[in-house]
Structures are given as structure tokens and as C-alpha cells.
């Protein structure tokens, strides 16, 4: 018999597609409390286990286990729970608004709320965050009004981005939230530059960046790691592995062969893989990385292992590319339910208070939504004068833009209306 010596091309494929029964038993999930917590000045080579393991604090019964327990005050836990619930309520209303034609586009963070919220609470408010498009919880955790975010989604009169940006591409300098780009991965090395500048100025603020596992294939991701490593930048590089890049599995970004956290190993700084749906673990790992950065010990790559329960955006139908109930089978659960169970277990929460908080949040989100919609929604505008589209291209408007601004004004005047 002749051996087949021809080459074979490997194409990664998602484990489960529509019609399959999801079964995540193949995941090697360590128990809560098992991971070691090295000192913040540990040499990178001694932290390698963290890049291949999984830091978990909350066990299946809602108890906090092991050295990574951040031992947060109950008020902080309740604040986190509230911010996650408010983020979810906000997301639901904006998603619905897209279905009603009030915004052209939206992206929910359902199931991933612990990422933005726990990390937002673990950082200082003036640390600069270079997020991707699914960390709206970070703004909520920093008490940025969801009303302001709604105005951006609706591109109404109070939209701070003046009707220029895709919905969810917020910019909130006062909240330490860098202007979002629709180009994936570009923010990652920019955060490194901001962190380098902060170190250059002998400042105390650090930078943090977020990227999805899919976009981590981009060159910008790797260049960020090079520069962060070379200059020991005080930056936290967060990679949110939510398993799906629209319809492509994490395997297409390289997740079949190794963990994403292990990317840091080759660059010589710690990579930590953490249960992204475990509020306590995410907070603890982020705080550890922040202390490293503040102590001039350099960057940390954090892989937040989670699951994108929502569609990628309002533009895709996940039932076309994955089992509809896959999230129900996800073994790491729902971050809100898990933090709630923990609070109840430690005697700081109960069903009555939870229901009351839920009702309060729903009412707040509805009230803010009504107020934002009253100021205008997509398609009902334009809400800023069209002449403003020529502003901010440069600090001072050059002659060609002045001419074009005047040309548009003539077109509008001759059409006798606000739109040509």
C-alpha cells in the first residue's frame, strides 16, 4: 500500500455549527482558587503558567476561592452588579431602537459585561482606556451617563461626535475613554504610545487597551506587544476572547494551537488568562496588572476568556453560523448571575433587593431613552448643522474646506431646505 505523502492544508473550523449540540467538555477548566498569584515584580518566566491556565475566583456555588480573591468591599460588588445590569438594560434598548429604525447600527455586550465593568472599577478613573467597540460597560462603571451614550447612538442634538461617527464609537476624554475607531486593532499600539508618554512625563497614570481575539491577528496587535515590551510601557493589554469574530471561530485567529494569553510569553512579559465572566477574577487580575504597570514592572497581556452571547452587531444573525443555544451551554455562565449569587452567599444581597435594583435600572434606562429620543433619532435630523461637517478636519479650516462649506450652503439654499 502506498503512503499518501501529499501535503494537506489545514483550515480551522468552529466545533459547533447550527444543528450541532454544543458540548464544551473539551475545555480544560481549572477549579476556582487553583491559580497561583505571583508578586507583581515576578520575572515573566515565572508567570508562564498563568498564560496557559485560567484564573478563577468564583466557584459554582458563588464562593470566592484562592489567592486571587480581591476581597472587595460589598459596596464595590454592588456597584459592579448595578453597572453590569445597567449596561445590559442600555444594550437592550439600543438594540431595539435599531430594529425600530432609530439608529442604523448597534453592538451589544451581553454576557461580557464583567470585562468593561470590573476592569473599569479596577483602574483609576484617569487611566486612559483605548477600548474596542464592546466595552461600553467601562463608561457605565465610570458613571458616565447612558443618556450621553444614547445621544451618540441616535446622532441627535447632543451627540458629542456631531453625527460623524458610527453608533457606539464614543469619545469621552473626561472619563479617560479614548475616541473609538472603527478600524480594528489600531488602538492597541496607540495605548502603548500613551503609556510611554505618561512614563516620559513621570506621570502616575497608566493606559489600558482592549482588542478582540479575532482582531489580534492584525499586525497592530503584535506591534503593540513589541513596543510595550521594548520600552516596558505602563500599559495593560486586554484581549477579549469571546470565541466569535462575527462568524469565524477563535481558531481562525490562532486559538486552536495555543492560548491568546501565551502571545505575551514570546515578548517576555506576563500573559494571564482569566475567566472573563468572573467579576472577582477579572477585577483581581486587572488590579495586579495595574500595580505592575504603576510600579514600573511593565506591561501585562490579559486574555479575558468569555463568550459573545449577543450577535456581533445588529447586522448579523448568529443562528446562521452557530447553534442558537450555544451560550446556554457555555460553562462559565453569566457574569451578572454569578456576581449576584456571590453577593447572596456572603449575605450582602437577596432576591428582594435584586428585584428592586432591576426595577430601578429598567426605569432609569427607559427614562433616559425617552429623554434622548426626544432630542432626535437617526434619520430625523440632521441634528447638527450640516456646515459642521467641515469642522475639525484640521484645527483651522483650510481654503478648500471653506470653499466646499460655502458650496454646500449654496446647494442647500437653492434647494430651499436643510437637505439637498
Amino acid at each position, binding site marked *: 500500500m502506498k503512503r499518501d505523502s501529499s501535503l494537506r492544508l489545514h483550515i480551522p473550523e468552529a466545533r459547533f455549527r447550527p444543528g450541532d449540540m454544543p458540548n464544551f467538555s473539551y475545555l480544560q477548566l481549572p477549579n476556582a482558587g487553583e491559580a497561583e498569584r505571583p508578586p507583581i515584580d515576578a520575572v515573566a518566566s515565572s508567570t508562564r503558567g498563568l498564560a496557559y491556565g485560567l484564573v478563577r475566583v468564583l466557584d459554582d456555588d458563588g464562593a470566592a476561592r484562592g489567592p486571587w480573591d480581591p476581597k472587595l468591599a460589598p459596596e464595590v460588588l454592588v456597584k459592579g452588579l448595578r453597572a453590569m445590569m445597567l449596561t445590559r438594560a442600555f444594550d437592550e434598548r439600543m438594540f431595539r431602537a435599531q430594529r425600530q429604525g432609530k439608529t442604523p447600527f448597534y453592538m451589544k455586550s451581553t454576557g461580557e459585561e464583567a470585562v468593561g465593568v470590573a476592569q473599569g472599577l479596577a483602574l483609576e478613573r484617569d487611566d486612559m482606556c483605548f477600548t474596542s467597540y464592546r466595552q461600553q460597560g467601562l463608561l457605565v462603571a465610570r458613571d458616565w451617563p447612558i443618556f450621553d451614550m444614547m445621544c451618540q447612538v441616535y446622532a441627535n442634538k447632543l451627540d458629542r461626535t456631531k453625527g*460623524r461617527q458610527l453608533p457606539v464609537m464614543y469619545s469621552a476624554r473626561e472619563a479617560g475613554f479614548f*475616541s473609538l475607531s472603527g*478600524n480594528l486593532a*489600531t488602538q492597541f*499600539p496607540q495605548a502603548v504610545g*500613551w503609556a510611554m508618554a505618561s512614563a516620559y*512625563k513621570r506621570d502616575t497614570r497608566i493606559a489600558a487597551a482592549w482588542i478582540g481575539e479575532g482582531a489580534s491577528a492584525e499586525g497592530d496587535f503584535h*506591534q503593540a506587544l513589541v513596543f510595550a515590551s521594548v520600552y516596558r510601557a505602563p500599559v495593560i493589554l486586554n484581549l477579549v476572547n469571546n470565541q466569535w469574530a462575527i462568524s469565524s471561530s477563535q481558531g481562525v485567529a490562532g486559538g486552536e494551537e495555543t492560548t491568546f494569553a501565551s502571545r505575551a510569553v514570546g515578548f517576555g512579559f506576563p500573559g494571564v488568562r482569566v475567566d472573563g465572566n468572573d467579576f472577582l477574577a477579572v477585577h483581581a487580575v486587572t488590579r495586579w496588572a495595574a500595580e505592575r504597570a504603576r510600579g514600573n514592572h511593565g506591561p501585562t497581556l490579559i486574555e479575558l476568556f468569555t463568550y459573545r452571547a449577543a450577535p456581533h452587531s445588529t447586522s448579523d444573525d448568529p443562528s446562521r453560523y452557530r447553534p442558537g443555544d450555544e451560550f446556554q451551554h457555555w460553562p462559565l455562565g453569566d457574569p451578572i448571575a454569578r456576581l449576584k449569587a456571590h453577593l447572596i452567599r456572603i449575605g450582602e444581597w437577596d432576591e428582594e433587593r435584586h428585584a428592586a435594583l432591576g426595577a430601578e435600572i429598567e426605569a432609569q434606562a427607559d427614562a433616559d431613552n425617552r429623554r434622548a429620543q426626544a432630542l432626535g433619532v437617526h434619520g430625523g435630523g440632521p441634528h447638527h448643522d450640516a456646515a459642521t461637517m467641515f469642522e475639525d478636519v484640521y484645527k483651522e479650516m*483650510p*481654503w478648500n474646506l471653506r470653499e466646499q462649506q460655502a458650496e454646500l450652503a449654496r446647494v442647500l439654499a437653492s434647494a430651499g431646505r436643510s437637505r439637498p
Partner: protein
Amino acid sequence: MSAMSMAQALNSAMDVMLARDPDVLIFGEDVGFFGGVFRITDGLQQRYGETRVFDAPIAESGQIAVAIGMGAYGLRPVVECQFADYIYPAFDQLVSEAARLRYRSAGEFNAPITVRTPYGGGIFGGQTHSQSPEGLFTHVCGLKIVIPSNPYDAKGLLISAIEDDDPVLFFEPKRLYAGPFDGHYEKPAETWAKHPLGEVPADYYAIPLGKAAVAREGEALTILAYGTMVHVALAAMNETGVDAEILDLRTLAPVDIEAITASVEKTGRCLIVHEATRTGGFGAELSALVQERCFHHLEAPILRVTGWDTPYPREFEWEYFPGPHRVAAAIATIMAG
């Protein structure tokens, strides 16, 4: 005042800005200890320290991205991209990020960065060390594009670029670093020592961006040029004896439209010269602007003399380079028209 080469004038500009503004810092490939492959940052690390002038990984996209982050923080980084031919990996960061940050954040963030990069031919660099990619960037709103043609302008323009609150791409004609070059490659190389524009003040001075300079006043024909081609145009004009007005654009974006229209309305004829490839090049934009604004003053069709629409071929350097013979022929054609 002292005689400086363009390389020394650029060095002096950064020296002045490093001394004046603690938020200015410089990085790029080999710019630190070594002072750059063209020696433009020579001695600056020694004078200002390693945290202000330092080497960067060979990763242009990362360099520009890091500069954008620094700019957003409030610094004024100056990046040296070793050759303009190497800038393409950074295209996304320049076009989608640096150029758009102010706009997309409605003024909350901006990227006051300067990217210096040597461009152009004349040194047998072949297709990866000779290109003139300015036209790829003049198409991008949000960027300013500057190209000096002599030491005096180089220093004043670079200081303005560093002080500018918008991202500036500063293309340096590498064939002019050591001396003026008019395309007569067969003649011995000249230095800037005897050139009037090689006299450069040691101290601070700024030349505003967006303003062209009249390199030579004339009545018969307007030649629009920048960088090395200003010197080629002067040589060609001298050889034809035509009384041409040569406009050194200095800034391509925003271009000095008033100077262009004033000159063409006066002369009624227009020749555009650049080293970059022709199709879709900046000359096409200049030609359209002149046609739109000066059509009734034109007495002959606008012509362009440019690099051919091929990659820069090393052993055909002088057949490719739009030298004085080609420029002179175009002058003759326009004057006959």
C-alpha cells in the same frame, strides 16, 4: 547665520525644538545613538538624552501608532521613517487614525505628530529607496504635507510642522541633503555652502505652512514645482532662456492656491513638474485647480513633466528622473502653444 546643508538645517530645527519644548521627542530607526542613516539626528541623543531621542523597532505602523498615542497624551513626537518607501505599513495609522482623530472625536483628541521621511531618487536606490509617495497622502483629508527645497526653508518649515496641532508628513528630498541638485548628474556634486538659501540662522524661526515661495519671478510661464524639482526647473529655464516664474509650493496640503492662481493669471501658461509617477499624482490635482480657476487666462494647455508610471528602475535612474532636458522640452512646447 551660518552655512548649513539641508541635513544640518533639519538637525538644527530639531535641536531648537528639543531645547524649547520638553514635550518634543524624537524616535525612529537608528535615530538615537547613531544619529540616523542620513545623519539628520546626529548628536541629538547625546545632547538631550535617551528618553528624548531614541531608537525604535523596525515597525513603521507601530512607530506612527505610538506617536499618535503620545500626541493624544499631549506630547509632540517627531518620527523619522527611514525611507518614504517604508511608510506603507503605517498607511492605516496615518490615514484612518492620525488624520481622523480630531474629526471623529469632535476635537476631544488630536494627533500633533510630525513624520519626517526622505523621499525621491538620484541616489540609485532602486524601487524601494527612491519613491515619491506624496500623492498617496495629499488625497487624505486631515494630513498636512510639506516638502522643502532648501536648507533655510527646511528648518523653518520643520519647526512649524512640529508646532502644528495637526499631523504633518514632512517629505525630505534626500538628494538635496548635501547640496542642490538640478538633475545634471554628470556634473560634480555641489554643496549648499555657496547657495544663498544655505545661509541658515542658528536660532528659532518658523515659516508658515500653506505658503508657497517664488523661487524665481518671471512673466512668460509658471512652473509649479517642489523639492528637488525646483532646482531642475531653474536649470531647465536657464537653458531655454524663457522668462519663467517658478513657484516652490513648499506645502502641498493645504496648497497655496492664491499664489498659484496669481502666477498663472499673470503668465497665462503653466507647467507642473514632479518626480512622482504621473497618473493620479499631485500634478493632476494642480492641473485641475489651474484649469478650474484660470481657464480664461490660459494661452496653452497645461503640461506635466513627471516620473514615468513605472517603479523606479535602478540602472535607468536618469532615464526615469524627470531631468532638465525633459523640462526644457516641455517649456518649449508650452511656449509654442
